[in-house]
């Protein structure tokens, strides 16, 4: 079943808020992961959370190029459309 872009944004925001220990309302999808203070372990956890949310696998050679929440949303929208 196709997932809407809004649903993707909501889930990615929630995952980012959890990983960066912020309120959802405070998370900027356009902010890169560095500015959210995510270290290398945090980025692995975030990826797993996103994969679990959408029951999908993001290959590492794709994942390494996704530098902010918006990148993740665009990628998933393309994959899950």
């Amino acid at each position: 079943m196709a997932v809407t872009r809004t649903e993707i944004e909501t889930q990615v925001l929630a995952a980012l808020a959890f990983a960066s220990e912020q309120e959802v309302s405070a998370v900027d999808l356009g902010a890169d992961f560095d500015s959210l203070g995510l270290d290398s372990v945090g980025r692995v956890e975030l990826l797993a959370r996103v994969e679990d949310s959408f029951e999908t696998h993001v290959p590492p050679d794709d994942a390494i190029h996704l530098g902010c929440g918006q990148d993740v949303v665009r990628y998933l929208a393309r994959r899950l459309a």
Partner: protein
Amino acid sequence: MTPPSLVSLGLELCSPVEELYFGAAAARGARTLHLYSDDPRAEPVPLSYDQLLIRARGAAASLRVKPGQPYLVLVTSELESIAAILGGMLLGALPIPCAPPAGLGGFAGWRARLEETASALDAQLVVVPSGLASLVEGPGLPPIQLASGLALEGPGVPGVEAGLSHLQLTSGSTAAPKGVRIRHANLEANLFHIGWRSGVQADDVVVSWLPLFHDMGLVGCLLFALYWNLDLALLPPTAFLSRPKRWLDVIDRHRGSLSPAPAFAFPYLASRLRKTDLSGLDLSSWRVAYCGAEPIHAASIERFVEVLRPAKFAPGTILPCYGLAEATLAVSFSPVGRGVKTVGLSRAALTEHRVVRSTDPQDTTEVVLLGPLLPEVQVELRDPQGLLTGPDQVGQIALRGPTITPGYQGSAPFAGDGPFPWLATGDLGAWVDGELVVLGRSKDLIIAFGKNHSPVEFERAAESVSGIRPGSTAAFAVPDRASGTEGAVLCCEVRAEESDWSRGAIACLVREGATSRTGVRPHDVRLLEPGSIPRTTSGKVQRAKTRELYLANRLTGAPS
């Protein structure tokens, strides 16, 4: 003498290197490697060690390097990567296991580190899983060979003497990547004594999620299991980091008995477990959980033990140990079954490099005993002038013995006379009740999540931010008891003309830049007025002195 053969497949071992890693399998019947993937639903792929030898021979026959040549291997926990490392060893070439990308983002920093490594160690080739080939194309890296293109079998390379085995990447106090030159003789000595001191038994099972580009994963798990011919279950590191409970599930499933981890992993796992996760889990087979690679905080380990107790995790399972890549892996081991033992030492006395027991809560730091030395390892504790320290004094730890490696690739060998050189570890230690304790470092190094980072990496990231005074930054480690690892602190002098408003933005940029470059989020970024950071008479930043002032809260500048 007829070499031992792997009877089931009619293979005869054809070199001293093959005998070292497959001799036990040949003598006693090959055990099995169980390879797990990131997918939690996927079943592991089993492969016996005689079949692994065939794959490694295939890799040796098809690797496009010559004996003695260094080459990079982007190591995943897939069979192709393992064959690419072992194949190089059988050939007499020098594999350099490197970290693959993990998690979201970070391509530029990862690629830059790989290029620096290739250049510093003169790598002639990069062996890469086919899915990652696009990440290593282009200038700055040597030619690519796909791991999936390595031959599945080969004739074996006869007569390869047990010389250099591989280069172990490590970060020293400088930014340039260093490759520790590990000899097979170093490995043989260390692997034997680790097993002997662990009371290794034929039915022991090793379980590991540790990366194979880390010495604890490559030497302590893969080569250890091969040398002793023990079953081995391997999980990708990302499988543990993203779903930590899988470590326990695999131990339960395989009745794992030996499973090591860096100190951070124990509180990391404990903090992510729910009570229901332990339902039905039986960890009673786990008899040794080696714990090292970074400073050990007793309280976080005790919490782990308490959390796992309902799953029949025995309190004595944790085995604190001390080691470093320059000594192949292990230097000292606590006794099996004892668990974590601490001693209270006077903080005041330690600042004067003296070891005095203390029970005064205001003046006591709990220090974990790291056990007696492994056999054949010699330790000397020395003062800054190189003279031996007296009893009950803290000194720099120097090591000598058959496990001490010859030095770094491209650098002068470790100094010393006699058959073995002395290695100055840069760690500060002392003897307590006949056991080694590590009390800090005289070298500048930040160890976070089991990985060594040079402070220079943090400082360069800070100095690339406009507003930070060049050559006026100091990065150092402080204990971070919450995470069970170390935190990096960055102290930076700001140009005097910067306003309060711009200072806030500068601190954010420093934090972002350092996280991006190192993968470690600074614990604190402190912006200081010009002239605040202590320097030597020649103008060099004194990191240790800056750290001392920071911990005493005597640095002027608000935390960001």
